[in-house]
């Protein structure tokens, strides 16, 4: 952004008549450089959109290889080493390069400034830097995956990762380390933006709940990520130099790494799920035309999850050799973190009560989120309970649980958000019929993929097995079938979204007749989001009064 163009923009008098059409952010420049050197948060959001879904494709293909291999008890298509590399690629790519940057990177970057009524993020250059750092980290990880693969699992447990693995662990671990800083930058930017950049009248009590969720997420990104960065760095040092930091033969303790790793990686699952929950608030209220039930409870439960989420990490280690007393303590604390999630579920359900409910694609995704997340959340209790965890730990029960939360929760939440905000981001509408159809297909596909894995887990099928006892075949085949059902759903989503960019009909400012201030600006928004700084007069969900946060009628535009 050159100084000249800023001044030009400022030269436009604030009282300019409505008919003057400002250029949207998409029309500010068409060259590749206007995208790569942008500092506009919206364009950065779009950069994330493209790259994040690129990685989703990579991780998804890896998932497909895993599922195909498990068609046969002796491993259908891959040898053991390749399988190990493929599931590691799936884990690393999906977690560090899809789930963690997905909603904060795409919707967070795009909508946090708009939803608080700011012109941009607090630190625009840091914002684009975070994307570049992330891409550098990704380049390292992809390099590692290409030159020999990583076969440690995404958890990188020593001493396997430092001593035994012959694969190219170092570039992969470096990629994780570097991309961590991107996560810190994004989180920092979002927190400062929320604190310092709010429009007049936008008090904390009037923030959209998506912003509250992003605030809680950023808190974890800011305070958790450095710990895993250091843990991975120590692991890298040990592997590269042969010093014994976690190696028991040289005096180290491998369980210490697990402590340091999970101190971040457990809160990290809340980085992945909280933004999804935030999106659901926006969608559920919009399509049932209701205020959110219990605004404060939902807002504080987000922050509660973020803080209490830091207290529970060792429930990943109940059978890993931690002390008896520590296990009791962490199991107790884990029970506490389940409560805020339950509160959210109840509040969303209560929000539907006496609403005027319509079932557009975002709403179907949101309801799907609620159904799938309930399963994921409730099965988590078996893993937080000490006794039951002993049997279920490290089995497919865990796999099914976190896929219900991560995929059924976060990915469906992301899709709900993308579908909800697509008209705002690009100013076009996608196919109504196909989007609803794909939504149902994806949700059913998820359930079909991961529900059989609960059964496998209860019968003790361990994670990360390329082959398994023959009697478990039926359920593995069912799971693979589910993968293809959701795969078809995703291809549909990609198709109609891309088609909508080409020939979708114009969406208008407020296609959903929603009340947040993000719907008061143009679709797609202009360079500085609003023609003039908006003034917020009320909370975000005044659907029954039909009033937007800016005080206008919601169904006029």
């Amino acid at each position, binding site marked *: 952004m050159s100084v000249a163009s800023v001044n030009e923009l400022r030269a436009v008098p604030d009282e300019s008549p409505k008919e003057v059409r400002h250029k949207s952010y998409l029309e500010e420049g068409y060259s590749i450089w206007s995208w790569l050197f942008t500092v506009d948060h919206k364009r950065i959001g779009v950069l994330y959109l493209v790259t994040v879904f690129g990685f989703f494709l990579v991780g998804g293909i890896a998932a497909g290889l895993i599922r195909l291999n498990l068609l046969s008890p002796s491993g259908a298509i891959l040898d053991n080493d390749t399988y190990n590399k493929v599931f590691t690629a799936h884990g690393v790519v999906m977690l560090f390069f899809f789930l963690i940057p997905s909603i904060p990177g795409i919707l967070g970057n795009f909508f946090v400034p708009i939803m608080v009524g700011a012109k941009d993020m607090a630190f625009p250059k840091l914002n684009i830097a975070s994307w570049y750092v992330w891409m550098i980290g990704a380049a390292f990880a992809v390099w590692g995956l290409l030159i020999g693969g990583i076969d440690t699992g995404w958890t990188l447990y020593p001493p396997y990762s430092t001593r035994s693995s012959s694969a190219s662990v170092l570039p992969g671990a470096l990629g994780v380390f570097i991309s961590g800083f991107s996560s810190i930058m994004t989180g920092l930017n979002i927190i400062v933006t929320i604190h310092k950049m*709010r429009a007049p*009248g936008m008090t904390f009590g009037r923030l959209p709940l998506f912003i509250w969720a992003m605030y809680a997420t950023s808190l974890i990104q800011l305070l958790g990520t450095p710990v895993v960065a250091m843990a991975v760095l120590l692991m890298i040092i040990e592997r590269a130099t042969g010093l014994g930091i976690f190696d028991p033969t040289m005096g180290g303790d491998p369980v210490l790494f697990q402590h340091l790793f999970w101190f971040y990686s457990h809160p990290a699952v809340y980085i992945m799920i909280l933004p999804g929950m935030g999106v659901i608030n926006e969608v559920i209220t919009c399509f049932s035309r209701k205020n959110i039930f219990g605004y404060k409870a939902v807002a504080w439960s987000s922050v509660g999850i973020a803080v209490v989420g830091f207290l529970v990490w060792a429930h990943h280690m109940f059978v890993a050799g931690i*002390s*008896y007393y*520590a296990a009791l*303590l962490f199991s107790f604390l884990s029970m506490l973190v389940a409560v805020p999630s339950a509160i959210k579920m109840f509040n969303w359900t209560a929000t539907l009560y006496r609403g005027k409910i319509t079932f557009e694609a975002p709403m179907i995704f949101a309801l799907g989120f609620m159904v799938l997340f309930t399963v994921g959340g409730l099965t988590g209790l078996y893993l937080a309970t000490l006794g039951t965890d002993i049997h279920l730990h490290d089995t497919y029960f865990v796999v099914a649980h976190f896929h219900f939360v991560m995929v059924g929760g976060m990915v469906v939440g992301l899709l709900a958000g993308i579908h909800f905000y697509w008209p705002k981001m690009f100013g076009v509408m996608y196919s109504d019929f196909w989007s609803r159809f794909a939504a149902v297909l994806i949700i059913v596909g998820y359930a079909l993929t991961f529900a059989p894995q609960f059964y496998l887990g209860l019968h003790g099928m361990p994670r990360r097995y390329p082959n398994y006892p023959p009697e478990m075949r039926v359920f593995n085949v069912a799971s693979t079938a589910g993968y293809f059902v959701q795969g078809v759903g995703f291809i549909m989503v990609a198709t109609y979204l891309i088609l909508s960019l080409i020939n979708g009909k114009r969406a208008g400012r407020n296609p959903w007749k929603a009340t947040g201030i993000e719907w008061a600006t143009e679709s797609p928004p202009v360079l500085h989001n609003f023609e003039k*700084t908006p003034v917020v007069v009320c909370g975000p969900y005044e659907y029954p009064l039909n009033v937007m946060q800016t005080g206008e009628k919601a169904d006029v535009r």
Partner: protein
Amino acid sequence: MVDHSTHGNSHGHVEDNPAAHVDNVGQLFIIYILIAIGTVISLFINMSPSWKQSSVVIHLAISVIQAGLVGYFWMHLRRADPLTWLTVGGAIFFSALQFILTLGDILTRHTGAY
């Protein structure tokens, strides 16, 4: 969470005089000397013939005081807003959390040294 009044309405309080909060040079030097003395004391304890393992407590106490001085005076925490204090508190809190909970495991394990 500190609910600040939003900036947009607060033009009346805008403070844009860079020289409004200028440090007192004398005070800076006094802090400097105090911190230096702390380090000297640390060194003396370390070199005294009656050195004990437990001196780590004194060392760390001195370090905490030094860090407190740096933070409070040099990093201007003394005129920081509540949000800054919250940030500092948060960093210390979560760091302490890591220490306490992880040590809670390690100190109660029945196995000894590896």
